[in-house]
Structure formats: C-alpha cells, structure tokens
C-alpha cells in the first residue's frame, strides 16, 4: 500500500459551528494506482484532496490518520508537512491558469522554487519532461502571461511532478478545459505514471466519464463519506450503491459525453454537514431507503476491492 487513509475526519470551522466536510473516510491506494475521486459539489472530495497536501486555515483534523509509504503524514501541522510536500505529495491545482507567478520568467521561477526546496535544477530533465507534454523549451524564457491556458496547465503539471512525488493530487484539473485538451491532459497524466514520475495519483473530479478513462479505481463520495469504491470498470458496469447508480443513470451514455450538471440532477439535496442526522446520509434521496438506513451503514467489501456503504447490498 502506498497510501493508507483511515477514519479521516476533517472539519471546517465556520460561524455556525463545525462543518463535517470529511466524516470518517477510510481507503487505501496501491503503488502505481490512479484513484478517481468523484461526487457532487460539497461531498468532501476537494476537502480530502486538500487535506492530503495543505489544509487551509479553517480546516481542522478531527480524527484519523494518513500514512504514505509507511510514514504518517502530519497533515494538520503545516510546518512539518513541508518536508513531504512536492517530494512525497504534490498537487496540480484546480487554478492552474493562475498558479504561476506573473512577474517571473518560468526558468527563474522553477529554479527558485527548486532551490528553496534544496533541489538543484536539472535543466535538461526539465526540458525533456516539457517536451514530453509538448512544451518547447523557449517557454522557459517567457512570462506566464505569454502562454496559452493549455500551456500553463501543462507547465504546472511538469513543475508539480519534477521531484517525482509518491502521490500526486490532481484537483479538478480538467474542469476548465475543452474536451480535446482534457484528453491530452489525461494522456499526459498517464504518461507520468508510466515514466515513473509519480507513483500513485488521486484524480479529483466530478466528471465520472473522464475518470473512467484514466483511473484504475473510482471512489464515489457522498456528504463527507465514502459511498462506493471499486475498480473503474466495476463502478461503471456494476455499481451497487444506489447513489452511484443514480449518478450513472443520469448519464446518457457512459464514456461518450460528460455531463457535469447531471450529477446534481438527482432530486433533493445532500444534508447539511453542520450537524448531520445519524444514519445513511443518502437516505432522504434514496429510492430504496428502508428503516435500517436510520443507522450508519458499515463499509462492506463485497468483492475484493469493491467497497460499498449501504444496508441494501
């Protein structure tokens, strides 16, 4: 196991109290595995992604552990985490378009970043990796403003993986791109794994269709909890959790078109995570909910690698 997350609880401090954005999530990630993390807005997938690399000021770990390559990540200790960031865990942020300092030429910026982390800049390696994603070396002598959106995205991808991190978190990297670019990004990510730039990857998205192309395993989250986790094919072809099924039903044809909005097309809305009611959180919207759903459903491993949190399976 490369990554082992157990019973992770992360809360947001807000005016009205703690929002339990992540409420006891357990899962593992094998070496070389790409995990697709899907769910509708507010399900906790972004919180999970952030928690693994950099919590923001209002996030707090309420319990649970994260172990990466046998070492526990001090996720709620911002300073201690620095040792792991970039080298062990890295991030391709959602905001890749604006992630680059506008007033530095890229070569200098990358150099300064690496030096600040005590790693020398291997210009040759950098240029090689850039050419692998189709970036000419001249890009390094430009300012970010001189690059197109796609170029910036690819540049960020290259930078983030320069130190060959064990775990890469790709947070909604495709949502701002058009379909063909999305595919290119997906291919590039796969290429990174093949060449060993990254060991494993968490691909956070709400686009279940795209995930299917890239991920080995897909994890569906709902309201801060794991709903279902299984190999990508299994999730798409034989989903067991009613929520996953509804998600997939909402798509016209799997793998043909992604339809962002459809995910939220399911009637009703998730419960408030401020003070969530006990029991299954999908209960209120679930077509097959029963009395037993008033209690928290355990996560059951139906077949090896296929975990579902539902009383009805």
């Amino acid at each position, binding site marked *: 196991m490369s990554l082992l997350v157990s019973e992770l609880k992360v809360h947001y401090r807000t005016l009205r109290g703690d929002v339990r954005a992540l409420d006891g999530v357990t899962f593992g990630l094998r070496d070389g595995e790409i995990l697709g993390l899907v769910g509708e807005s507010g399900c906790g997938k972004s919180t999970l992604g952030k928690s693994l690399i950099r919590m923001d000021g209002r996030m707090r770990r309420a319990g649970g552990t994260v172990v990466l390559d046998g070492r526990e990540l001090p996720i709620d200790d911002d300073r201690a985490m*620095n040792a792991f960031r970039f080298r062990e865990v890295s991030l391709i942020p959602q*905001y890749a378009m604006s992630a680059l300092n506008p007033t530095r030429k890229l070569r200098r910026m990358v150099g300064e970043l690496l030096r600040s982390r005590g790693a020398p800049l291997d210009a040759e390696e950098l240029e090689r990796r850039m050419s692998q994603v189709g970036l000419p070396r001249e890009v390094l002598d430009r300012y970010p*403003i001189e690059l197109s959106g796609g170029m910036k995205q690819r540049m960020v991808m290259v930078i983030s993986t320069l130190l060959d991190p064990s775990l890469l978190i790709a947070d909604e990297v495709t949502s701002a791109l058009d379909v063909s670019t999305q595919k290119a990004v997906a291919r590039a990510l796969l290429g990174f794994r093949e060449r060993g730039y990254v060991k494993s990857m968490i691909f956070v998205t709400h686009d279940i269709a795209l995930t299917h192309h890239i991920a080995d395993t897909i994890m569906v989250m709902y309201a801060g909890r794991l709903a279902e986790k299984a190999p990508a094919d299994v999730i798409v072809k034989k989903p067991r959790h009613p929520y996953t099924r509804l998600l997939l039903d909402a798509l016209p044809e799997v793998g043909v078109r992604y339809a962002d909005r459809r995910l939220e097309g399911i009637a009703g809305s998730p419960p408030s995570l401020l003070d969530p009611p006990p029991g299954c959180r999908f209960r209120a919207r679930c077509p097959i909910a029963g009395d037993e759903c008033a209690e928290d459903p355990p996560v059951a491993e139906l077949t090896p690698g296929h975990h579902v949190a539902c009383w009805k399976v």
Partner: protein
Amino acid sequence: MRRYFSRKLLIYGLTFFVAVTVNWMIPRFMPGDPVASMVARANVNKPEAVEAMRAYYTGLFGLDQPLWQQYANFWGALLRGDFGVSIWLFPTPVSEVITRAVPYTLALIVPSVLLSWVVGNRFGAYAARRRLLDNTVLPVGYVLTAMPYMWLAVLLAWAFGVILGWFPVAGGYSFSMRPNWSVTFLLDLLHHWALPFLSLFLVALGGWAIGMRNMIIYELESDYSNYLAALGAPSRLIRRYAFRNAVLPQITGLALQLGVLVAGALVTEIVFAYPGLGSLILKAIQNKDFFLLQGTFLFIVLGVLIANFIIDIVYVVVDPRTRAGMAGAQA
C-alpha cells in the same frame, strides 16, 4: 513600446497645454489689479507720479494688449524660458526666483517620497499577516497617514526645535554659515533638512505601509502563493514573490499621490521656513504676485509630469506584463 510611450506623451503634452492655459488665466480671474497694488506699495503720493508708474508697469507686464496677444506672448516667452518678472521681488525674473528655491524643494521632496515609499513598503510587507506587528505597527501607520502634514510639522518643530533644541526651526542652513563644500556645511544642511524631511517622511510612510500591507495580503492569498505553499516553498520565497507583485500597484500609487505629496511638501516648508517653493507660493499668494505664482505652478506641473513619465518607464521595466503585451502588439 513606441505606441505606449507616444500615448503617454500625448497625455502629458495635453496636460501641459491645459496647465499653461489655466496658469495664464489665473491673473485674469483674480480680483484686484496687480499694478494698482504695486503702485500702492511704492510710497508715491503725487497723483501724476502714480499715473506715470502705473502706465509704466502696465506696459511692462503687457496688460494693455489684447488678450489673444497676451496669450501668444505668454507662450512665446515661456518657450524662451522667460516666466516674466516677479512683482513681489521686483525686478528679479521669476525663473531666477524659482531656480534658487527649487533645489531645496527637490532635496526635501525626492528623498522623502522615495524613502518613505521604500521603507513604507518594507514595513507594510513585513507586518502583513504577522499578528503582533499587524496590531502594533499598522495602527501607528494609520495615525501617521491621517495626520495633517502641518500639524505634525509644527509639533515636531516645537518638540525637537524649541523644547529640546536638537534641531533648528527655520532656514535651509545655519544663518551663520556661508555655502561651501566643506563637511561642516553639508552636515549643517542635513541638520536643517532633518525635521522637514522627517515630518514629510513620516506622514507618507504610514500611507505606503498600509497600502502595501493591504496589497500584499491580496497577493499572499492569490493562487500562485497557494500553489507555492502547496509545493512546500518556504514563506520567505512566497513573500518575496508577493512583495514583488504588490509593489506594482504601489508604483502606480506613487504616480497618483505625487500631487498630494507636493502639496504636503509645500505646507511643510512653510512651517519650517524652509526656503523652497512652498514658502515662495505662500508669499506669492499673499502678495498677489501672479507671475511668480504662474511660474511656480508651471514648474510644479512640469515636475509632476516628468516624475510621472519616469514612473511610467520604471513601471515598464518592472512589470513584464506591460512589456509582454507590447511585444505581442508589435509581433
């Protein structure tokens, strides 16, 4: 690049034209007749002599010509560097009166503006997101920037000049000195310069510190800062980048503030009897010396325009985005 600068130059040229025209209009709008007041101050009590003097001065100042002629003459004289003759300091040419005063004003304004800008930016950048400093240094900054220049200046003059006796309260250099290049004299100059400089510096300092503090907080919350933090970059690097980017709006701010800073310098000079343009303007106002007024204002406008242009150039050098944009436009 050429387009950018020619645009800027057009604006500055237009401004200069408007300023010259406005300046030319000042005396034509002012109540009272400068020749009358001048003659009154000369103690001539024979009516015939008064008339002779009046005619003489009116001829000298060109007030008897048609307006358009006066306006044309004004431009002609201006281009020859002739700002007319001061009435208050008759018969000294205005250009001479100004050239004598300008070094003092420049010596006061340039260092206080630049230093307060540099130091204020440092302070603000340093204090931002550091709770202790943010809660101690910045309130001081707010108080400083909200102070009327002359109030602080008078308090400083009183405390350090009259009470403690550490600094002189008037003059550009000791009244016992004659200008020379000795170290003693230079120190004496600095001694007289210190308090006016300090009051200008302090008030401006607060403004820049606060501006920078607010600016840099925006930058520290920006995406590139977050990305760097996520990659474990030390806060030193992040702050450096943020500072660099926050400085850009501060440069623009410098250009915007120039007028206010000049006004502050003028008031401060008056308080400390510093022999620069400020004291001159006050006296020109009081004595209705409109040639002198025109000259000083024109000079200030010109100075501000030049400063603006320098800032434009600096901005282009510092901000790659303007250059990149221009490179794109050319390609």
